[in-house]
């Protein structure tokens, strides 16, 4: 059935006004596609629940946790952001300290080191970033999505958490860095129990 509103909307489609498009057959498109198809894959096999080795990103000293959007968030401790846009946020000290003093996991310890904590599902792993949709905030945020950013990339592995699209994780963070040392990781009954206990009182 003809729909006038739909047709009228289609007429204001900006792509009608001659926006230049790259052809699939152009040299640069072909180059791009070739580059993509030459990217080595460590894909998870389809039906095996077995090892998750898809993407491993260091989320320890080098990882920056960037929370974004979804209505803004009110966290403590105002911050003077550097004004230059562009490269991902790089964090130094905080994360390293947490790594260095790899304290044993306990709900109490988690309570101490978690400024932020949430349960999330990975929706995308792209280069140096992992995007999670937040399933539940345990502490300190209200964003719907969280981007974990490892500015030094995959190489800087000081023990990483393997992130696979579609899998669930429990993440805690402090000072803008993901807590490592077992304070974040793929959701397991044990870690879940630890998070539940640590944040039982909000």
């Amino acid at each position, binding site marked *: 059935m003809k729909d006038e509103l739909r047709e009228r909307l289609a007429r204001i489609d900006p792509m009608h006004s001659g926006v230049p498009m790259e052809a699939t057959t152009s040299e640069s498109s072909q180059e791009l596609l070739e580059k993509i198809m030459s990217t080595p894959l460590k894909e998870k096999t389809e039906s095996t629940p077995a090892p998750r080795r898809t993407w491993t990103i260091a989320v320890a000293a080098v990882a920056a946790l960037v929370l974004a*959007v979804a209505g803004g968030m009110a966290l403590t401790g105002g911050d003077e952001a550097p004004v230059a846009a562009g490269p991902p946020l790089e964090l130094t000290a905080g994360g390293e300290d947490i790594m260095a003093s790899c304290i044993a996991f306990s709900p109490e310890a988690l309570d101490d080191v978690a400024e932020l904590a949430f349960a999330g599902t990975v929706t995308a792993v792209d280069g140096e970033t992992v995007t999670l949709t937040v399933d539940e905030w345990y502490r300190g945020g209200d964003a719907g999505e969280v981007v974990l950013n490892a500015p030094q990339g995959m190489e800087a592995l000081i023990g990483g958490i393997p992130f696979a699209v579609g899998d669930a994780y429990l993440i805690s963070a402090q000072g803008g860095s993901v807590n490592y040392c077992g304070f974040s990781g793929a959701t397991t009954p044990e870690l879940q129990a630890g998070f539940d206990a640590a944040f039982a009182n909000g």
Partner: protein
Amino acid sequence: MSSTIDRRARFEAVVDEVFDPLQRYIRRRIEPDRADDVLSDVLMTAWRRLDDAPSDRLLPWCYGIARRTLANARRGQKRHLRLVHRLEAEPQTGFEPDPAEAGPDAELSEALASLSDDDREVLRLWAWEQLEPREIAMALDITVNAATLRLSRARSRLADRLARQDDAPSGHEAVEGTMEQR
């Protein structure tokens, strides 16, 4: 290795199908100078996740990847705002064509611009990408029911805005027939 060759063949088939519409989708939603990077990222993700690609809804599936990639790209600009920095409520759609350049139907452009991000996006998917609710659902990662409802409400709200504009002196566009969903 034959599986590699097979994968390449499958990916090339996907690219053949989605390249142009995907590119349009992206160019409608982000500044021209960033569109190529986003396209490249989306295709890379599609390559990695090729095994998840639903053969009957390839394009909406790619739109879903593009939606998340665009969100990341916009967020990338904000990365310098530290974790504890309070972010302004960021529009989901970073790039809006200037209504003044929207051509003859300024009335509709204005009405569209006055809607919420969610309403605008569902209407764009419907009218610009020409998706049906089932496909909109996949692109937005929501259920078909939710997509149907969201579209219906967005249409009603757009029609309302237009009707209100019509109460003003200028012309009388035919927006009846879009109200039946109320």
